[in-house]
């Protein structure tokens, strides 16, 4: 009976984890560039109670063995990199990547991080930074006398100065990974390279499979509220059913103990 209890308990733990993942997705329904996570369950190892082909009576063998599974575990969460909706903001420094690619930002310690959140700003020195103040890589400085800034589809940053001359001050580079789902989430909309993600490849927007850059737009979260809520109901019901199994097991045990103590 203990086995049934622990099996049902693994089911409850897994569903609880699913609720955790859904809750985080729902909390980030309005986060720019957020990618929803999907949880992946796997069944646990099986205990072979009887091998297939065992002789149960003379000349009669079982066609199938009896393997009893021991429950479920949450194997991993996967980030789903489907595109989020584009929202028009009209701000020239808001950029959205349509297609594949990440922006790179440099942390104060010199390490690189990757993000899809394109709400860029200008800091006091005129550098283009993300909303945490980390400069984008390669660094692009907008001259102080710039009247307007315009970012092209290929990432080129065009600046118009007071005399009306347009000059290119830099090009925003994009980065791709062989396995973007392997990136680790660091919070603040930032992702970090891991061994699983593979080495980053830099390139220009619109070339070699990179997406293009849309200025004046922000990529919203790709969380679909309805899907998440449906998943939430499923998880809650599955949790309930597993607790029901524990109760049924408990009832069976009670029946047995009633006989024992008579």
């Amino acid at each position, binding site marked *: 009976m203990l086995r049934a209890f622990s099996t049902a308990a693994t*089911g409850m733990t897994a569903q609880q984890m699913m609720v955790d993942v859904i809750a985080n997705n729902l909390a980030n329904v309005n986060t720019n560039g957020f990618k929803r996570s999907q949880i992946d*369950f796997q069944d646990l190892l099986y205990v072979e109670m009887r091998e297939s082909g065992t002789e149960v009576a003379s000349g009669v063998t079982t066609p199938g063995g009896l393997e009893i599974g021991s429950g479920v575990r949450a194997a991993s969460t996967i980030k789903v990199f489907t595109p989020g909706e584009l929202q028009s903001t009209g701000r020239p420094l808001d950029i959205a990547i349509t297609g594949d690619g990440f922006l790179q930002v440099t942390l104060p310690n010199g390490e690189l991080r990757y993000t899809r959140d394109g709400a860029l700003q200008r800091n006091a020195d005129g550098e283009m930074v993300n909303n945490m103040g980390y400069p984008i890589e390669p660094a692009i400085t907008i001259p102080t006398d710039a009247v307007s800034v315009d970012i092209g589809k290929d990432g080129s940053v065009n600046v118009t100065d007071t005399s009306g001359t347009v000059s290119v001050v830099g090009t925003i580079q994009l980065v791709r990974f062989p396995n973007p789902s392997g990136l680790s989430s660091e919070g603040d909309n930032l992702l970090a390279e891991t061994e699983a993600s593979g080495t980053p490849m830099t390139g220009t927007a619109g070339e070699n499979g990179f997406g293009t850059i849309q200025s004046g737009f922000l990529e919203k979260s790709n969380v679909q509220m309805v899907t998440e809520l449906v998943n939430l109901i499923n998880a809650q019901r599955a949790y309930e059913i597993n607790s029901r199994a524990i109760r049924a097991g408990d009832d069976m045990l009670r029946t047995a103990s009633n006989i024992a103590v008579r």
Partner: protein
Amino acid sequence: MSVITEQVSTSIEALMDEFYIITHNLANVSTVGFKRRCNAFSRVLEGQESSEEYSPGSINLESAFDFSQGGMVETGRELDFALFGRGFFVIETAAGPLYTRNGTFRTNQNGQIVDGEGRIVSGEAGPITIPANVSLSQLSVSSNGSIRVGDTAIGRFRIVDFGENESKLVPVGASCFLMPEEGIVPVAAEDVVVKQGYQESSNVRIVDELVDMIMVCRLYEANMKFITAQEETSNSIMGVAMG
């Protein structure tokens, strides 16, 4: 008298096994590609109620997997694949191939398509590598499992079918199955459709499992009643004998 005890304990043991199977099915109600175990025992008992012959030990608890189709759930993820129809994906491991219906794949750092544990998913011609200059959103997978980027084919999933021998597969966890018998070679699956952006949900039906669970609990109780009744009978016989 001891015959009854023996019979009761056999069926209690079998009922417990069945209860374990049901709890395992219920725990895996949201496991992608999971195939429920049939719990044939209660059905066997039902059948035996009507038949005249009954001898302990004749209960053949045939707990085979139910390989029926699970539901199709849309995820929109480029590397989620669901199989519709008979067939398995092949996973390459050091200890030989494993077979799975869980098509939640990833790419590894070399761009090869791998399963959730990082093991290589077998293609018709070895591992399938997604070229570095191709983004996942450009992948399209046709219903026969061939993967294309634009007009260029980059590989095709190996999807196999065991036909009659499907019931000989042994589960090894992580939604994978193993073929323990060496002689059985799977053939290429024919009646199968690969759907990209979908997952095949577990084929556990909650209501069926709950009904079975109630059945098991009641049968268990009934068997326990037998023991109680037997105790009372023996008490009263003793009472008569002792005067």
